């Protein structure tokens, strides 16, 4: 296998007495999408800022396409595009003007910048809105324009910091397909997100972070397998039946147990996939518990996170 496009080893970054990154490693092969997933303050943005040369690490090292981010920052900048957590396109300019302006900053001639602007509007599905001022754009169009504005030179690496934060589901899905298209075109993408769904949908490789370190990494499926793979959810009609249902499931499913009283639900990790559904249904029936719904499913990334940190992604302690 060729050497990774993005590589980090033992990255540390200190703010005052607090380590925002505390020995962070990363390795992303060419043309893949890597998702940094973690709660607020995990250090996701800090990783992106260091890799995109905006910030120097206090320890460790990192390379982009083999160039050291601290010592060869200028070369690195020739290979990357980034969109920050906030949108940076100008409201009062039109989409086309925004792109032409960024094109000029990438040292295209005025004519080339205009031509490239049109190509990018086309590529990111914004041709119809190209002559409108950005203040009339939807959140999703704005984000796609952000993406386009950092893709002027078709860099081989794109850093996206929470690219879909604040978007409604439809806009989010549009943004996802734009990101997928970039990856299909061979661009290596490193994105951060707090949404499990997003990492699940987009990433070839997920790095789960908390407190400035990686706590797990792998493909979405590998990570889900970490919790035992499959879970069974039982929804009872009456909240009072939860303890009894939990008792039954602890005996029959065999794995970890989790209750969600607000939704009248008990979940259990499954050790024996083949018989789990019938075993649990039968045992519930025998115990006289009236189950409204019994389903078998893959673990969610939230459960992986919970398992590894004892916290869910919103940072609440599990009960």
């Amino acid at each position, binding site marked *: 296998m060729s050497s990774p496009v993005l590589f980090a080893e033992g990255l540390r970054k200190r703010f005052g007495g607090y380590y925002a990154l505390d020995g962070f490693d990363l390795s992303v092969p060419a043309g893949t999408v890597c998702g940094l997933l973690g709660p607020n303050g995990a250090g996701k943005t800090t990783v992106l*800022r260091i890799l995109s040369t905006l910030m120097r690490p206090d320890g460790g090292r990192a390379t982009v396409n083999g160039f050291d981010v601290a010592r060869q920052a200028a070369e690195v900048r020739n290979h990357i595009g980034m969109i920050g*957590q906030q949108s*940076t396109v100008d409201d009062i300019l039109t989409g086309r003007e925004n792109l032409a302006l960024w094109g000029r900053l990438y040292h295209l001639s005025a004519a080339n910048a205009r031509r490239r602007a049109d190509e990018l509007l086309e590529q990111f599905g914004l041709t119809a809105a190209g002559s409108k001022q950005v203040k009339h754009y939807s959140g999703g169009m704005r984000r796609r324009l952000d993406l386009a504005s950092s893709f002027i030179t078709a860099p081989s690496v794109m850093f996206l910091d929470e690219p879909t934060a604040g978007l409604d589901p439809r806009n989010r899905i549009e943004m996802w397909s734009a990101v997928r298209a970039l990856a299909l075109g061979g661009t290596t993408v490193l994105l951060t997100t707090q949404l499990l769904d997003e990492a699940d949908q987009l990433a070839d490789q997920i790095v789960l972070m908390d407190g400035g370190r990686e706590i797990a990494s792998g493909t979405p499926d590998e990570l889900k397998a970490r919790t035992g793979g499959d879970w069974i959810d039982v929804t009872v009609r009456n909240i009072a039946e939860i303890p009894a249902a939990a008792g039954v499931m602890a005996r029959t499913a065999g794995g970890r147990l989790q209750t969600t009283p607000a939704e009248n639900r008990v979940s259990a990790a499954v050790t024996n996939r083949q018989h789990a559904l019938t075993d649990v249904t039968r045992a519930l029936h025998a115990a006289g518990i009236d189950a409204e719904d019994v389903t078998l499913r893959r673990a969610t990334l939230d459960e992986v996170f919970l398992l590894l940190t004892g916290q869910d992604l919103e940072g609440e302690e599990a009960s």
Partner: protein
Amino acid sequence: MNGFVEALADGAVVAKRNLIKVKRVPDLIVFATLSPIMFVLLFAYVFGSAIEIPGMNYREFLMAGIFAQTVVFGATITGTGLAEDMQKGIIDRFRSLPMARSAVLIGRTTSDLLNNVIVIVVMSVTGLIVGWRIHSSFLEALAGFGVMLLFAYAISWGMAVVGLAVRSPEVVNNASFIVIFPLTFIANTFVGTTNLPGPLKAFAEWNPISAVTQAARELFGNTSPGFPAPDVWPLRHPVLASVLWSLVILAVFIPLAIRQYRKAVSR
């Protein structure tokens, strides 16, 4: 050298970005010119009748002072503009580009300089309407405007450091008001300095804004033999003093601003 030319070209693009904004959202420049117009009218008609300048019309004396105050305030938008770009993450985007570190600052200070030119034109017209006249040659008058704009440009670089360090446009705005407002009043801008109490008098006489004002007054021919400049070096050689002040401020703040830009961390 090549890098410098490139920085200028990038700076021009950044300046264009800022200027398009001014064109499409003219409120900014409208308010930037309305307040000096108001000042001209207030001072000319309200205080003008109370303040006596021997041997000349107060309105003639006043204009250079108002010009100086206004362009210095005009320069503070460099700070608010950069703080705003900082807050919005735009500086981060710029910094991730293969672009000279000084380009954004060159662009910003240049567009703010052009704003000041517009403001000066509007004020000159207002001044002419209320009876201000230039009694020198065309070239001298141009030099008078040049001295003020150079000084304002230098202040812009100082404000760039403040804007990048403070990162909140509101705070930059308030802070610069608190510092610059007294600075432009404890000077020879609106009254003579001779009657000020001791320490204030010394401050006013050495205040760079006084030198700039005096330089403009002399270059516009708005002086009177009945009201000579106080016998301190910067006010006896105001043009030289103003240029020196400007160069010193530039020499200190350009490197500081570039350094601050390089390590700027937006949150």
